């Protein structure tokens, strides 16, 4: 049943691969365009910083991103080439704020072999040609005509087979390229060629330079008037042109990125592999180059791209750490650095490993990733939902309600916190030491339970108890007026705002009171047929103190009604259906849309769009938030209004793009909440839960939350141990000066504060390859097992490794056993109370045996051969799924009777694996080297031996991402009664920092969504005219095939962002109501 899969991105790619700067959106505006592998972001440079204008997905992996300006154009055009040999030229349409495609095409060839060193795409500075180096030995030219339109492309044979870089030179009468290449003796040279348009061939260029630095792999063309080219090597930098040659030695470094500072090209920023940023200056007298100068500026993230924006502000795009916006100062700071980091942009990539844990033990998964590389390595805790950061808490059991009050209506801060208990009311206030202490408001009753409190106009406070409504002056704190419930009736529920009170007494009496200056006027009384269960008069209109509408939830007929104030005339009545009474109603306006929210006693929430003029309730939607009654309350954060739903699974409801999003809060059971904005705790919430009152601030309201634990070294493998509440990681630290450049460690971290608890250094040349927390048969301890490999410089294939078994004792790693292996231990799995290791070509099973002296050791039991390299192993029961380096997936079984491991089936395709997962007993998932996902299925019931031994490929899909790891789990809380809870999901992490979710859908749902996907392909056009169908079709070196059994969740969920007109178009094509479609898509969004 796990054949029908739905793939969706929970975290978009974050690794920045390309960036460029130019006047793209208008001739006057300066834009930064950032490519994150499969996404393009367009930013506008403003005095306040970078402002995001557009973020769009591209149906391809970006290989080249260049801005250029053809003759006669006032602003720049964007040229994009993809790794799939498609290219497009995009233009900004300022009227619709959209990208329009000026030109597009396919530059794939039958001839030639794909370049090993990556595709090169360059544009002649005078816009005569686009040059592409895609295949060894071929240089493709796309000429521009006089009007700036592209003409037919042609290939020119290139003599150099190992091309490292090609750039167009400035200031040449004929378009000229400089080619940096390596000959077959591994020496590096630069040659120049003129491109002759007439001959469609090369003409010998003006100069060449032989025998360069062996590490030279980057060319920087220098603009006019200097012209020429800079050749960046590992030990030297050479300036070269037809009539000058200047070189300077540099400290050994590998330059990864450059950015030009001046238009005349006299200064450049160079970013190296260690994250150091240098300024390279070409000194010149007029047009004559006199020398080069290099100066260290400081340290940033390891740059993959550098874009100089303006006024010494530079964008550093990184694939290994967070991207940064930096400012280059004129004067160095105390540490001698000229670099000041202004802003950071989170990057999770490369995610080499991760684990799914439930640290708060609330049934919600969190992902802890090994992110970044080298010095920028970090652990990132990625979690769905919103965090409350606890600031203070007091033990106060039995809270029945809390409200915050101001000492005057104009006061910016709240002063009092009214806490109601079953038979008393306590008032807390902040004292001078910023502590909460008991205080009194004389006019309030403190010996009874408070039903509601609110600030009122004219510096008054209102308290509603079961017998009375009391109006108190907030300055004198004396009672000013009082309304008593009629004899024989008690107030059951009540609500108020600054100028109105609505309460209901037993017998269905609804009383409406208006607050004046020292007066309480009973304006209206209504008799309803049933008892009132909840009510609300939260103002949603223009007047923040007065509400035109009242919402009332009813017992018995289970309905919610809207009354018009002050007359209490019935506007609308909506039957809720079911047998559960509404327990809380709320009127609110989010992003300018009025909603009526109605929470039921069983944790369900209904929401309606409310037309405030007609009282009409539309777009009824029902979601399940928890299992206990919900209390709704609004609060604001960053000047936007949100709704807090307190229950056993507290949630925040907020609006994004005019749609409601439910995000859970990382707290267990919250009974009551009120906003509490005090001087000591600005923008905080007071939360009543589990016998205590907590004051805390709330995270930024967004879906995924990422917490960074920088560790300054490169974490490679991670695993969590529930019992000891620790994480263990295998990491490596680069040591620039020491004899051995890398040191490898096993480190133990606390899972709450992520502090290093202990470190076990590995031997010289020993790498940690795999890590596992497991326990063994007949041993109650839990252990960390670490598989290592001795990587000796002279060996191709490691022939020695170790399996280390640690136990955590008092927060320390204690080595209890070690076993030498004949190869590197690529993978470790717990297997039937034993340890299953993948060692080079072999799968080996170890048992945990007791020696005579009472110590334990690993003893090999049996093994299985027949792999090229068994890199990725997963187990389920007695089954072992092996992802081979280059021979796809094979399935092994452990036979207990014989004590042997045998192969029972395999996929005979030649997929180079990067990760494997087990979907169910018969279906397995693989990710390959060519960015595909595929599923294979075993036919255990097949008639012939041949069919039983062969796994059938049942699903294929191009994900366009390099997947490093699959893990079972979910980022969201699964409620037992919601529809999505039955859907098994897997999480994956990729090199570009994508966290994705793969869900196995029931077949009917899959079929429905497949139809929707097909319809959406017709309506949503890809950027640059690229086809979604082609993008998602499976492709490797040998073949390509349409995607099957996989759906693109990102495309399907973009339905919710479409305009109503487009939704209707799709709904018509599908013959399904828009509302129905919307509902089904919304359900899916709750998978992640």
């Amino acid at each position, binding site marked *: 049943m796990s054949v029908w899969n739905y793939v969706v991105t929970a975290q978009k790619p974050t690794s920045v691969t390309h960036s460029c700067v130019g006047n793209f959106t208008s001739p006057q505006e300066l834009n930064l365009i950032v490519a994150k592998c499969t996404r393009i972001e367009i930013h506008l440079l403003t005095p306040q910083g970078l402002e995001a204008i557009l973020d769009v997905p591209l149906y391809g992996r970006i290989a080249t991103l260049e801005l250029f300006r053809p003759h006669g154009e006032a602003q720049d055009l964007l040229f994009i080439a993809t790794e799939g040999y498609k290219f497009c030229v995009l233009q900004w349409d300022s009227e619709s704020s959209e990208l329009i495609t000026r030109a597009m095409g396919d530059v794939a060839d039958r001839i030639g072999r794909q370049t090993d060193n990556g595709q090169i795409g360059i544009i002649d500075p005078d816009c005569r040609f686009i040059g592409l180096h895609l295949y060894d030995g071929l240089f493709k030219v796309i000429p521009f005509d006089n009007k700036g339109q592209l003409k037919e492309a042609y290939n020119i044979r290139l003599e150099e087979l190992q091309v490292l870089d090609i750039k167009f030179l400035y200031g040449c009468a004929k378009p000229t390229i400089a080619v940096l290449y390596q000959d077959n003796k591994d020496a590096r040279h630069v040659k120049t060629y003129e491109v002759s348009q007439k001959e469609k*061939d090369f003409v010998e260029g003006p100069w060449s330079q032989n025998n360069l630095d062996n590490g030279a792999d980057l060319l920087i063309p220098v603009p006019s008037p200097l012209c020429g080219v800079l050749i960046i090597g590992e030990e030297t930098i050479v300036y070269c042109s037809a009539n000058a040659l200047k070189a300077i030695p540099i400290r050994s470094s590998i330059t990864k990125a450059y950015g030009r500072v001046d238009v005349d090209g006299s200064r450049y920023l160079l970013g190296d592999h260690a994250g150091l940023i240098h300024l390279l200056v070409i000194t010149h007298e007029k047009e004559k180059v006199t020398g080069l100068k290099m100066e260290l500026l400081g340290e940033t993230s390891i740059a993959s791209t550098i874009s100089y924006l303006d006024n010494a502000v530079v964008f550093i795009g990184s694939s290994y750490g967070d991207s940064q916006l930096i400012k280059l100062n004129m004067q160095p700071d105390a540490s001698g650095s000229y670099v000041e980091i202004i802003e950071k942009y989170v990057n999770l990539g490369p995610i080499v490993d991760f684990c799914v844990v439930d640290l708060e033990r609330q049934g919600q998964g969190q992902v802890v990733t090994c992110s970044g590389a080298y010095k920028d390595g970090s652990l990132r805790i990625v979690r769905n939902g919103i965090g409350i950061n606890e600031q203070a808490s007091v033990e106060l059991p039995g809270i029945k309600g809390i409200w915050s009050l101001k000492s005057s209506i104009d006061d910016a801060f709240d002063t009092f916190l009214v806490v109601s208990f079953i038979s008393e009311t306590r008032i807390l206030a902040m004292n001078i030491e910023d502590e909460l202490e008991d205080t009194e408001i004389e006019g309030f009753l403190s010996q009874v339970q408070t039903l509601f409190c609110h600030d009122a106009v004219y510096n008054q406070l209102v308290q509603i108890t079961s017998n009375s409504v009391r109006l108190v002056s907030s300055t004198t704190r004396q009672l000013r007026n009082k309304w008593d419930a009629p004899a024989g009736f008690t107030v059951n529920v009540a609500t108020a705002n600054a100028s109105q009170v609505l309460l209901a007494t037993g017998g269905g009496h609804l009383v409406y009171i208006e607050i004046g200056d020292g007066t309480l006027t009973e304006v209206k009384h209504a008799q309803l047929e049933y008892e009132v269960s909840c009510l609300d008069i939260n103002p949603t209109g223009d007047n923040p103190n007065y509400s035109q509408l009242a919402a009332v939830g009813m017992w018995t007929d289970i309905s919610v009604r809207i009354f018009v104030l002050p007359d209490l005339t019935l506007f609308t009545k909506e039957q809720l259906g079911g047998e559960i009474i509404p327990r809380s109603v709320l009127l609110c306006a989010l992003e300018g849309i009025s909603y009526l929210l109605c929470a039921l006693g069983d944790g369900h929430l209904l929401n309606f769009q409310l037309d405030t003029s007609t009282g009409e309730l539309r777009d009824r939607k029902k979601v399940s938030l928890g299992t206990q009654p919900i209390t709704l309350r609004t609060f604001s954060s960053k000047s936007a209004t949100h709704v807090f739903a307190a229950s056993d699974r507290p949630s925040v409801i907020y609006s994004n793009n005019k749609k409601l999003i439910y995000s859970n809060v990382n707290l267990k059971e919250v009974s009551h909440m009120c906003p509490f904005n005090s001087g000591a705790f600005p923008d905080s919430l007071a939360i009543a839960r589990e016998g205590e009152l907590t004051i805390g601030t709330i995270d930024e309201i967004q879906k995924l939350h990422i917490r960074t634990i920088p560790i300054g070294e490169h974490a490679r493998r991670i695993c969590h141990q529930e019992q000891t509440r620790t994480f263990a990681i295998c990491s490596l630290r680069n040591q620039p000066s020491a004899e051995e450049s890398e040191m490898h460690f096993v480190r133990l971290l606390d899972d709450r504060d992520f502090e290093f608890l202990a470190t076990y250094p590995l031997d010289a040349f020993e*790498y940690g390859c795999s890590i596992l927390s497991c326990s063994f048969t007949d041993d109650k301890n839990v252990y960390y097992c670490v598989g290592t490999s001795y990587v000796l410089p002279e060996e191709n294939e490691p022939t020695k490794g170790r399996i280390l078994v640690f136990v955590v004792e008092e927060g320390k790693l204690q080595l209890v056993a070690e076993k030498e292996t004949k190869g590197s231990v690529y993978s470790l799995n717990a297997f039937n109370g034993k340890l299953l290791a993948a060692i080079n070509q072999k799968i080996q099973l170890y048992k945990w045996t007791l020696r005579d002296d009472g110590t334990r050791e690993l003893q090999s039991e049996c093994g299985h051969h027949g792999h090229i390299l068994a890199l990725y192993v997963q187990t389920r029961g007695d089954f072992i799924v092996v992802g081979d380096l280059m021979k796809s997936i094979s399935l092994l079984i452990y036979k207990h009777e014989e004590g042997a491991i045998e192969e029972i089936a395999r996929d005979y395709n030649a997929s180079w694996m990067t990760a494997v997962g087990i979907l169910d007993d018969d279906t397995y998932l693989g990710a390959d080297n060519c960015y595909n996902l595929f599923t294979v299925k075993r036919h255990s019931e097949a008639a012939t031996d041949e069919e039983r031994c062969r796994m059938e490929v049942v699903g294929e899909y191009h994900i366009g991402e*390099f997947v490093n790891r699959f893990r079972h789990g979910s980022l969201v809380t699964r409620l037992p009664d919601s529809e999505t809870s039955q859907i098994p999901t897997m999480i994956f992490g990729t090199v570009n920092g994508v966290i994705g979710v793969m869900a196995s859908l029931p077949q009917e749902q899959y079929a429905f969504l497949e139809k929707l996907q097909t319809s959406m392909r017709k309506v949503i056009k890809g950027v640059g005219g690229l086809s979604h169908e082609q993008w998602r079709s499976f492709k490797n070196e040998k073949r390509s095939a349409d995607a099957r059994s996989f759906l693109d969740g990102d495309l399907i969920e973009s339905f919710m962002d479409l305009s109503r007109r487009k939704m209707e178009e799709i709904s018509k094509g599908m013959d399904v109501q828009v509302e129905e479609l919307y509902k089904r898509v919304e359900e899916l969004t709750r998978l992640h």
Partner: protein
Amino acid sequence: MWQAIQARETGRTPSNSFANRLKSRRISSLQLSNRKDFVSPHRGSVNSLQVDLTEGRYLLSGASDGSAAVFDTQRATDSEASSGLIAKHKCVFSVDKGHEHGHKFAVSSAVWYPIDTGLFVTGSFDHLIKVWDTNTAQAVVDFKMPGKVYRTAMSSLAMSHTLIAAGTEDVQVRLCDIASGAFSHTLSGHRDGVMSVEWSTSSEWVLYTGGCDGAIRFWDIRRAGCFRVLDQLVTQLGVRPPILKHTAVNSKVSAEKSSSGGKNRLKNQHGKHTGSQNMKGSSSTKASVEKSRQKRLHPGMLSTLDRATAHYGVVTGLKATNDGMYLLSAGSDSRIRLWDTQSGCNTLLNFETGRLQTSKAIQLATSDDPALVFVPCMKTVKAFGMWSGRTTLMFRGHYESVNTCCFNSTDQELYTSGADRQILVWSPGGSVEDEMVQNEEVTEDKDNWSD
């Protein structure tokens, strides 16, 4: 290895170059496999080998005893073999003289239908080409040829035709259409039998043929006649024709251009540069001038004028490189030549072949990473660097002369066969080590039990 995997994990090494580097390392360690063995059912010299193009899994062989056989390269027939002994791969099935449709004489060529493994084609000295249904092992189509069939080929790219190109004793090359069961083309030009045929790897319409007359002809099957005859004396040094001189000093060239035109001009310039070629240079100029004129005049009439040869003697083997840019040829003059298919020039690469078989067609193979050419050199097979011509690997194992090499790029394995009736497997090294490890484990296990 672990470092390479780490570099791939972090995105430092692009995944394709990771794969290429690894393949290249595996290929350079090719050695006679001690884990895999094909049990040859053939009782005669094995003349043809091909791995299927879709799965890269099934090996088809054709032999002089009139038999053809299919082997599974992945799965050993002997299940016991997985316990560490040499895995035996018996043929899945074979068709021989005993078969009701079997060939009467030697099978000279056996090729797979490129689209799937449902069909394969055999050509025989009994003048027949047969198309076989793999699943039933029955011949479904017969083509009667005018003489012994030396070589058959199908285009791996073809999307719009299902043509078998056949080189026979006859001077004409025939294209047999499986769809209709009839000849669709007869290509005239060669003046002797055609020993080798090869489809282009860049265009489904282009066919290369090598004849016993020493000529290699290029055909575009959409047009009449051949469009190019390779001349061993028209040369270029390196991977492409020389670069045009800088325009400032180009007046002489442009004057010459009016007489010879296009790319040919470059070649004779080159001829002048390369000393020893100087004498022949003039004749090549003439030939190419004639050729280009002829091309313009009447492509179909070319053969009467052009007597250019690619080899002295018989062209015994042709192999187009996977990138579609070059063609390798083997001749009875014991030479391997590498041709630039775009310019038609001989690249003057000197492959250290020693002696080659002269009387039979031989089958060459290439690999991409590193760029190697596998050539049967009498009893050995040599691998030459594509751009150095130097012998990088030498495979000794056959007892008689080797006829064919077939490289399986999915597994990086080389299959060779020869007159000794064997099909040998050469696989990447490292498995020896593996063997040792295993033996040790076995003894270790015994120790445990004996305790």
